């Protein structure tokens, strides 16, 4: 079942008098539980597509469906609720809230919704996530007391806090050294397998790309390759 569907999506930005065609008409779908990678060089439209899937931007043309909900015409309130209930985000520069500690950063998305679990439930879940990302000893540290890799681990835990169907990660390893980047991708993959959460991440790193079971390659706002494979079997379809 497709959890994300894009049909002939176009996105045009206006910069002064000039029009920039960031996405020129792409169609693809991502299945639930996919570990999908959107790859391509800078300016190919990776981030724009992630923004459209993340409901923080609207297409100029075409249809974006998230978990069966078409996003066009939705008001800000509905889009915000959809983001909160369905999506999690991991950013290139981590984007932790500096005044909150590790525990509070992870707890943050949980406190935004109306139907939040009880205090005890929240605590147990966050402790599980902190443990899972290997930061049990840093629970009460502020973000400026953590390394880049640790911050990204917090961001992964935060993205998973609301148990979203989809986690979007925009170049999650770009600000990390290759070893840390590898471990972050492995962590994401582990979470993908254990929680059956769909991960969609953008990257231009070939080694990271290889771990994905669904690769969408972009060039100049168009899909040049949409391939699915069984990672275990190593076969590409």
């Amino acid at each position, binding site marked *: 079942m497709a959890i994300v569907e894009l049909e002939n999506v176009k996105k045009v930005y206006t910069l002064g008098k000039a029009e920039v065609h960031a996405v020129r008409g792409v169609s693809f779908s991502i299945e639930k539980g996919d570990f999908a990678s959107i790859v391509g060089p800078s300016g190919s439209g990776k*981030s724009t597509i992630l*923004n459209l899937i*993340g409901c*923080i*931007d609207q297409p100029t043309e075409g249809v974006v469906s998230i978990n069966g909900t078409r996003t066009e015409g939705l008001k*800000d*309130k509905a889009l*915000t*609720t959809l*983001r*909160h*209930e369905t*999506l*999690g*985000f991991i*950013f290139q*520069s981590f*984007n932790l*809230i*500096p*005044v*909150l500690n590790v525990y*509070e950063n992870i707890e*943050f*998305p949980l*406190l*935004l*919704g109306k139907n939040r679990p009880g205090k005890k439930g929240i605590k147990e879940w966050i402790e599980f996530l902190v443990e899972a990302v290997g930061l049990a000893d840093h629970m009460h540290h502020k973000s400026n007391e953590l390394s880049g890799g640790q911050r990204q681990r917090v961001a992964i835990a*935060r993205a998973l806090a*609301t148990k979203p169907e989809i986690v979007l990660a925009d170049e999650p390893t770009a600000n990390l050294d290759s070893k840390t980047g590898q471990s972050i991708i492995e962590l994401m993959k582990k979470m993908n397998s254990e929680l059956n959460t769909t991960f969609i991440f953008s990257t231009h790193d070939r080694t990271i790309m290889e771990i994905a079971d669904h690769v969408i390659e972009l060039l100049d706002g168009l899909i040049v390759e949409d391939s699915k494979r069984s990672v275990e079997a190593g076969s590409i379809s």
Partner: protein
Amino acid sequence: MFLTMKVAFRNISRQKKRSFLLAGAIAFGMLAITLMNALTGGAVVNIRDNFSHALGGHVFITGREWTDAGQMIMKIRPDVNLDRLLEDNASQIEAFTKRSQAMPSLIFGSQQTMHIVYGVDFAEEDKLLDSLVVTEGSLDELGANDDVIILPQPVGERLGVEVGETILIRLETLTGQQNVDEVKVAAFIKDQEELGLSAAYTSRSYLNTLLGMDPHEYQILNMFVTDLDLVDGFAKTFREGLRTSEEEGEKDDEPEVTVTVAGVPMDPMTEPEEITRWEGTRYQVMNINQIMEAVELIVGVLNQVGLVIFLILLVVTMVGITNTFRMMMIERTKEIGTMRAFGMHQKQVKRIFLWEAVFLGLLGCLAGLVLSGLIALVVGSISLNADPSLQFFLNNGKITFRLPIGSVILNTSLVVFTSLLAAYWPARAAAKMSPMKALSSHT
């Protein structure tokens, strides 16, 4: 709500210097208005107390009657009705004094001056004796001899008399005859001559003799009440209780205090053509609040001026807050985008900024109040050797600060309201920001 409050509260400590400066500006405004309110509040209480001491009470009853010769005189005779009222309301009366008064010429050698003299029963005037500041001589002789007088220092200086010397006292009796006697100066006291409260004191029985009254008669009954808040009702009880059947239907209102003689409240005399003679004694009941109305009016104006200055300071601070919040909004653009991406609604983003404004305002108010308290504590402990006129505003030479809780609430509400107003537009702009643009920002 709790999340937005928590983030807002933490944000305050993010840029400590900036928050300190903003809260400091608010604190300065709060300090100024609080001190002004507390100073005037204290002054009102002190003036009321000093008036009460100087006039010998909170409620003043005078009696008038017509003589056979057609003269109206001020006199209170023994009256069963008045005694009953005193007895019935005894629980509300802290103390009462009976006084006579005159405006005689005081003569020493070639110098002469007219001055108000109260005839008091020194044995029952503890409050008066406590409040008198003796500059020369002693009050010890008062109980032993009747024909002694206590003079305000300036009066003694005008006459050129020394303590222990004898002066002449010349006055008209109640029925208009001239009377002269010798009286010894027992002491000089500080007074508030500039405020028209300068008075000399002698024994009531002695002054009664000079005025042609019996020793047990008097002209003013002064009462200290136990609860000043109830003074209006208390005075009304006496006013109604002492009204004669003839007076019923004449006028119902409280008499207006438009004339004071040496600070003594006097109802303006009715126009001669309107005077109709009456039998027996008619009473007039005044209370301290009627005298304080003018003072409170001045204090009210002062407080209004203070409030205007405070509002000007707030407007200036408001501009600063708006600018700072705009800066904060720009600095936190990416953070706002992140929070929006995770599902924070626009109104929640707005709330974070507004809570910050509330916290800053409250912090400023708290700092202003604490600083005012400290200043009040230090200034209030200093004994001032001020002019007699200034002494009237003081409590035993010390400035008193009294801050009504109502003005604290009003000023704090004003600060919080203006802080909210100042932060509203930046908060709204932050809330309206597109999550995508916010996330792609480089700040």
